[in-house]
């Protein structure tokens, strides 16, 4: 397997036409990119389209010689931004049309102090928690869902800000309210299950 850091591999592909460098990049990031898009889109067919489009776009960038390793952004952030932008442009409206939940900030603050179901959340095992959280995530507005997805993928504040085009304070605020909504939605799901 070809080795080297991401930017070096990308430049070898772009400058020298080194196919093995691209192949190494593809193997390294293929599944992570797809998993990220799956989380964002929640739909496999959409994720397939967005992921493939991002890779083809990256190849086109190299063909034109316009990838700049010193632009100050990590390769992975660049690649994920290509995918994120395509998703926003092509599918975000459809996604927005089906999201339903709405909860104002006051409600979140009030309910954050409601401890009635906190213990239950604490007792959920990892797979139960993941399932419930993913369901709750689908009800968030796109901007919050996006930040939570990037955060869960391990991106730091600077990268999240660069990818979403939102100032760091805005990203932090979206994350805060998204976590509040997740907490609330989780409690509601647990309560509904208990009652049924």
């Amino acid at each position, binding site marked *: 397997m070809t080795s080297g850091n991401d930017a070096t591999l990308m430049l070898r*592909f772009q*400058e*020298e*036409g*080194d*196919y093995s460098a*691209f*192949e190494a990049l*593809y193997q390294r990031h*293929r*599944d*992570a990119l*797809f*998993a*990220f898009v*799956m*989380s964002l889109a929640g739909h496999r067919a959409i994720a*397939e389209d967005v*992921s*493939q489009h991002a*890779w*083809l*776009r990256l*190849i*086109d*960038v*190299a*063909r*034109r*010689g*316009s*990838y*700049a390793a010193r*632009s*100050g*952004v990590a390769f992975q*952030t*660049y690649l994920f*931004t*290509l995918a994120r*932008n395509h998703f926003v*442009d092509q599918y975000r409206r459809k996604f927005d049309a089906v999201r339903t939940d709405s909860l104002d900030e006051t409600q979140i603050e009030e309910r954050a102090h409601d401890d009635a179901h*906190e213990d239950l*959340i*604490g007792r959920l095992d*990892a797979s139960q*928690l993941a399932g419930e*959280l993913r369901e709750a*995530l689908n009800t968030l507005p796109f901007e919050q869902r996006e930040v*939570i*997805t990037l*955060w*869960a*993928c*391990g991106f730091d504040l600077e990268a999240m800000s*660069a*990818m979403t*085009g939102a100032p760091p304070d805005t990203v932090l605020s979206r994350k805060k309210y998204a*976590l509040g909504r997740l*907490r609330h939605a989780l409690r509601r799901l647990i309560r509904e299950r208990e009652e049924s």
Partner: protein
Amino acid sequence: MNSDHFESRAREALRPAAESPDPRQDRVVLDAAREAAAEIQVRRRSSRRQWWVPASVAAALGVVAIGLWSTVQPPEDDTLRGSSGGSVVPSSGATLSTPPERFDWEDQSGATGYRLTLRTADARVLWQSQTSYDSHVEVPQSVRFANGATYLWTVQYEGPVISGSLGPFSFRLAAN
């Protein structure tokens, strides 16, 4: 459960599980990469050969070319000249006999999307494109141009860490 504990459990739980796309994607992407790699190699070999051209001949040709270019360029109105952007089509200051069907500009390093705005000479927005991933856009047939009128266009570009604009560039449609 305190807030920090909830955050760390949520982050862990929501971390996307490794998942592979359909194997057909591998074929499509890797075939495209192979093709691009071959194209880049050919271009590279071709540019290497150009180094064999003696530098003095190249320099002389360059001087002649610049001289010729400067004599055939029409005078440009400074207020309408593009601020940057290298080569664009239609070229800034051009007079066209038919309305443009497409606008082209140079790729900007680090940009992941472009949006073109077309204005009339009095700066009224005539048309704005969707985000384009390529350094060109097609003009829809619904955009109406008037003979004899002057138009301005700009391109906003954006990437993970850069943003900026090109232009304004101008062109004029021949009166008839």
